[in-house]
């Protein structure tokens, strides 16, 4: 891959462009001017059993149990799943449905822990290595298992179990680890602050992940509106001997360059195939927060029980970043930031472009919650009633997937689900660029989400119908075969009777033949019964002699 490195431009790494994208007011200085603060210890922790993509964790505690900080309270179910750990010490007071931060606004089962205020650690597993430099001596499977057991999921918002992503399999050799420090959404600064304050830990995590996937290089992509973070990483990198293997790369600030597919394209020039995953093109992508969590787990034995959360927007009094135990109620963080400033349009989990609205602040911070955004009406004005699409094509101009959003909209609106898929609906990444620039103020992403959900539902229905049809066809075939066999048997019987009546004058030998034929018929009949029973999924033992 020497072609990737351009010798021009003062040894700068060659960067690639993706189609479209939008420049947005970044609003980062609202929250990145003060260092990260510890969130106040909450009186109650609410830990949803589903904080990741995949199967929900299975609860391992009961109401009344005493738990210690870092103790496992729910174990993974299946390969794509993740365990949950107590983020402070206390007593389990309830296991019940509670509001959680989810786009659906639906409740989900949570373990509720009344904290005792002592924040006592439970017994942690021993570090696997004294430092990241010694990680190469560790068994890959052991490190992978530690990451899984520590409940680490993608911290950038998608929350896909990291151990799964870091285990692409033998048939997919990985040459590049892409570390996502782009943080392209406006307002959010938790990755920025993490890079400034824990650069060394991030590099440790990167080194561990490089060992896991046996990649030869790691590229850390950082948008160039975060010079402090890039500096911190560079200084930390200089302190190690990893300069040749790990590189921090400043990329132009352009939303959505922090999208996984977009960042990989920018840094490597490769495109993740449509409907594919990065491993297919030799890349694994992880967030900087995930890297730090991996370092905590492998070098310190600490499971994922806290994360950085940006509390920002002009709707809160003092925007800033917090180190937050997972399960802390959002309301507690808002209160720590001086409460609402009075003029709140909406509270959002995540950023303004892809985050979702929270109906209540009584939801807990989960592993995926990177930002609580309180927007004033001035920051998030009501776009008004949508006007008809005038097909101006600005949406297509900014679409990072190079789709035709105007055509997708047209067909989604008409509920033509085949047509939307013809226009590659499932390559849409929900980034919101199209809706942002639409002069008719059409909620385009909402239409696409609707069409996607409808398509999935229809796909499921179709699968169920196909299955039923196959079963029906199989049954018809079986009945028909049984009927055929019955007739064949009858015919044979008739032939045998005819043969018997035609040979009355025959001697002993003929008699013997008739008896033989009768025996054969009896055996055939038994075998037939046995076969039929087998097809009826009953035991065939009775039919055997």
């Amino acid at each position, binding site marked *: 891959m020497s072609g990737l490195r351009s010798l021009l431009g003062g040894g700068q790494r060659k960067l690639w462009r993706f189609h479209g994208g939008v420049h947005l007011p970044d609003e980062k200085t609202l929250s990145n001017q003060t260092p990260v603060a510890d969130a106040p210890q909450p009186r109650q922790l609410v830990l949803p059993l589903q904080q990741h993509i995949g199967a929900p964790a299975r609860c391992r505690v009961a109401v009344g149990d005493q738990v210690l900080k870092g103790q496992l309270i729910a174990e993974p179910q299946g390969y794509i799943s993740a365990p949950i750990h107590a983020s402070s010490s206390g007593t389990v007071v309830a296991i019940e449905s509670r509001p959680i931060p989810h786009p659906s606004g639906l409740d989900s089962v949570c373990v509720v822990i009344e904290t005792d205020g002592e924040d006592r650690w439970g017994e942690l597993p021993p570090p696997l290595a004294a430092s990241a430099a010694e990680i190469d001596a560790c068994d890959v499977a052991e490190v992978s298992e530690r990451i899984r057991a520590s409940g680490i999921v993608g911290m950038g918002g998608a929350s896909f179990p990291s151990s799964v992503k870091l285990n692409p399999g033998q048939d997919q050799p990985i040459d590049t680890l892409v570390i996502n420090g782009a943080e392209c959404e406006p307002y959010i600064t938790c990755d920025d602050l993490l890079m400034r304050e824990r650069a060394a830990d991030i590099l440790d995590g990167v080194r561990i992940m490089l060992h896991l996937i046996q990649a030869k290089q790691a590229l850390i992509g950082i948008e160039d509106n975060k010079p402090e973070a890039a500096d911190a990483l560079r200084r930390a990198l200089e302190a190690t001997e990893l300069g040749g293997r790990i590189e921090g790369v400043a990329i132009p600030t352009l939303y959505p360059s922090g999208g996984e597919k977009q960042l990989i394209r920018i840094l490597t020039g490769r495109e993740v*195939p449509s409907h594919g995953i990065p491993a297919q093109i030799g890349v694994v992508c992880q967030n900087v927060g995930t890297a730090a969590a991996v370092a905590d787990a492998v070098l310190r034995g600490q499971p994922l029980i806290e994360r950085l959360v940006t509390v920002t927007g002009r709707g809160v009094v003092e925007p800033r970043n917090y180190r937050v135990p997972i399960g802390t109620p959002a309301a507690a963080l808002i209160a720590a930031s001086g409460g609402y400033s009075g003029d709140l349009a909406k509270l959002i989990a995540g950023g*303004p472009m892809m985050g979702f609205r929270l109906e209540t602040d009584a939801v807990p911070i989960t592993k995926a919650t990177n930002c609580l955004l309180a927007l004033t009406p001035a920051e998030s004005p009501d776009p008004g009633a*949508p*006007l008809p699409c005038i*097909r101006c094509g600005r949406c297509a101009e900014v679409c990072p997937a*190079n789709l035709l959003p105007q055509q997708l909209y047209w067909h989604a609106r008409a509920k033509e689900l085949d047509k939307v898929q013809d226009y590659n609906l499932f390559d849409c990444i929900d980034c919101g660029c199209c809706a942002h620039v639409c002069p008719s103020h059409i909620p385009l992403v909402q239409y696409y989400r609707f069409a996607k959900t409808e398509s999935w539902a229809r796909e499921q229905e179709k699968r169920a119908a196909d299955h039923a049809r196959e079963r029906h066809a199989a049954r018809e075939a079986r009945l028909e075969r049984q009927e055929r066999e019955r007739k064949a048997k009858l015919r044979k019987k008739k032939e045998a009777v005819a043969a018997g009546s035609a040979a009355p004058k025959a001697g002993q030998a003929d008699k013997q033949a008739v008896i033989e034929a009768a025996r054969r018929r009896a055996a055939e009949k038994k075998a037939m019964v046995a076969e039929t029973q087998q097809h009826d999924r009953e035991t065939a033992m009775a039919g055997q002699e």
Partner: protein
Amino acid sequence: MATTFISSPHSARVNQVDQVMLQVCLALVPGTLVLVWFFGWGVLINMVLATVFAVLAEALALKLRGRAALPAIKDYSAVVTALLFALTIPPTLPWWMTLLGILFAILIVKQLYGGIGYNPFNPAMAGYVFLLISYPVATTSWLPPDVSVLLEARDLTTLSLFDTERLIFTGALPEGLTWDAISAATPLDEMRTLLDQGQRIDEIRAGSPLWGLFGGRGWEWVGVGFLLGGLYLLWQRVISWHIPVAVLGGLLSASTAFWLLDPQLYPFPGFHLFSGGIILGAFFIATDPVSACTTRRGQLIYGAAIGVTVFVIRTWGGYPDAVAFAVLLMNIAVPMIDHYSQPRVFGQRRRARKKA
């Protein structure tokens, strides 16, 4: 639909339809001023009349359709249609013809199809073609460029604002003037007629006040005015370069090829570019997003096809200018071009090509 929605993005929207339309109106200013300079007050009177008719027609149609009229009128799309229509008709067209054209454009071509965003044809051009077919003489009777100066030189009264108004509303000419004295064919019309009579271009260009440097006198400057406005639209990113460049490119390459073949039979490419409505058409009419192609590659095909069609009709067709016909013809082809010109989606190897 509810005015508040919960789906992302939550950011403030950066564009608005009415802003886009107003910028188009603004971009028409330089070309309009030049037109008024050369062809008199009639241009302005037509613009005002057409706008009033268009807004009233739009309101009426929306009322009949049971929709709220105000939001649709406030998007200024009817105004843009009216202005473009007014800029294509002769400056002294009787008012009721303007009314007919606008009614056809707004009621039938736009609102019967569902209003803004749903009309497959460009309303202004459809309205113009409707008039052109119904009243071929009136719609091709132009004034000579620089009409006032010309009349003064012949010691005749000039066509004042009042005279023009009277002409448009009553059809009465000022005393001492006849239609023959003030009307003239457009340069394209003249060129076509004389070529058909077997004259060579050198003969045609000699001894007529109609010709300028290489195009029609006055028309050259009208073209420059609209070109300025078009560049403004490009600069403001109201339009992209694809359609105008393709239209002008299509016309230029076709006309250059034939001009090189025989410069006495086929006019200089610059004449094609700076006579008639091609520049207005390329930047303001073919770029109407609703009725044009929406994919970038499709826009190139669409534009080039318009350019070539204009040349074909101007050279061998039955009408001296052809922008309106070319645009309408290509409007028909838009769905097919869009279907076959989809971009390559991120992560896909080939361009998306599907069975029809």
